[in-house]
């Protein structure tokens, strides 16, 4: 088991037995869930869950993330399959677009007042 026991939880209550949770042999992988809330909108990350396989993940996602009509379509992706960019603290990955105002319509002011431009 991991050594990073969260602090403050080391106390075993009186009568507490040191036993092992029987999860070890059966851990289900983590899935990320994306939900489309209505036609015309993109799928948005809703959260995650555990499931033994893709088809159960989809069903679990339906049961968990659309209990209140949140969705009309669901994607599930194994969390381990996601490749993420480095966070912004680690360099210039997202620096380039900063300050390139000429990519935006608002940069071009001379056409102001001219119809349909």
């Amino acid at each position, binding site marked *: 088991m991991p050594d990073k026991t*969260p602090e403050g939880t080391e106390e075993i*209550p009186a009568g*507490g*037995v040191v036993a092992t*949770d029987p999860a070890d042999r059966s851990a289900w992988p983590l899935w990320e869930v994306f939900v489309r809330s209505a036609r015309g909108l993109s799928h948005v990350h809703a959260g995650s869950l555990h499931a033994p396989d893709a088809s159960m993940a989809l069903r679990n996602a339906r049961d968990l993330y659309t209990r209140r009509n949140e969705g009309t379509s669901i994607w599930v992706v194994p969390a381990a399959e996601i490749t993420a960019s480095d966070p912004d603290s680690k360099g210039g990955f997202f620096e380039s677009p900063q300050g390139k105002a000429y990519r935006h319509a608002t940069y071009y002011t001379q056409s102001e007042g001219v119809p349909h431009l």
Partner: protein
Amino acid sequence: MSAQQAHLQAVGSQAAAEPITEQARRAADEARVGWERFQELIAEDKRVEPRDWMPDHYRKTLVRQVSQHAHSEIIGMQPEGNWITRAPSLKRKAVLMAKVQDEAGHGLYLYSAAETLGTSRDEMYQQLYTGKAKYSSIFNYPARTWADVGAIGWLVDGAAITNQVPLCRASYGPYGRAMVRICKEESFHQRQGWEILYTLSHGTEAQKQMAQDAVDRFYGPALQMFGPPDDESPNSQQSMAWNIKRFSNDELRQRFVDMIVPQAEALGLTLPDPDLKWNEERGHYDFGELDWDEFFSVVKGNGPLNHQRLAHYRRARDEGAWVREAAAAYAAKQDAQARETALLSA
């Protein structure tokens, strides 16, 4: 794997090629930049996201806080769940089932948030299973009568919501997002509890008695859900500085008392505190000293139902082990088969 672990591993793999001093210098640089960025995010009340650098202590504190919250939702299913089969009308049965089911969902959202910090759900389950993890002490009290279901909804969920709404702005992104979802869903929990009590307090004499008795028993423990008084809560300061706790225990407790006094009046029930009265000067209700000896005794495991709650949880985990194993084994077989088919057709 946490971002930090990934980083350490990356550094480790270059060990042979680079001199130790170079390695150490780079790690220190990285930590310094990360630390500054982290400080900046906190100072500007922005969100820290999973792959960001964060201090170890921040990570540990969050895992503890979020997992304890998740455990509370899971153990919290028991006292009310115990009434699903006996709910006195079909409508109430449906409401209660939906509510207890929501609690499973909330536990799940929170476990997911904690998982982004690099602690697996199984590790957290393990903490709860072995009795090492804490959860809200209120759930170690019994739900003896139907009115208790009402009191839990009104007072316990009410206190929880008071605590949770500010946490929608918690500095850790996944935690805040889980809280938003939870708060949206929980808004019905408190109302249904209040409505149960209202119906009882406007019903027969026996029903009214039942309602008053439940409020008498849950009032004190509900106020204690905010934790010990500020001067006895040593970790609060740091958590507030990190924006993972936005108000102090006593502030939240006061806010809750101010909220429930008029609600109790609307119910026609009294709150069991002779010292409860409006303080014009403070603009708040004064209330009496709570029984902190009882509180700490329950926290330490001597509550009425600590043992029973844990035993129930363990039984479910134990009895479900073969099912979890079967599903994992089936998935592995399917994968193997798919690989074989792919090989044959290649």
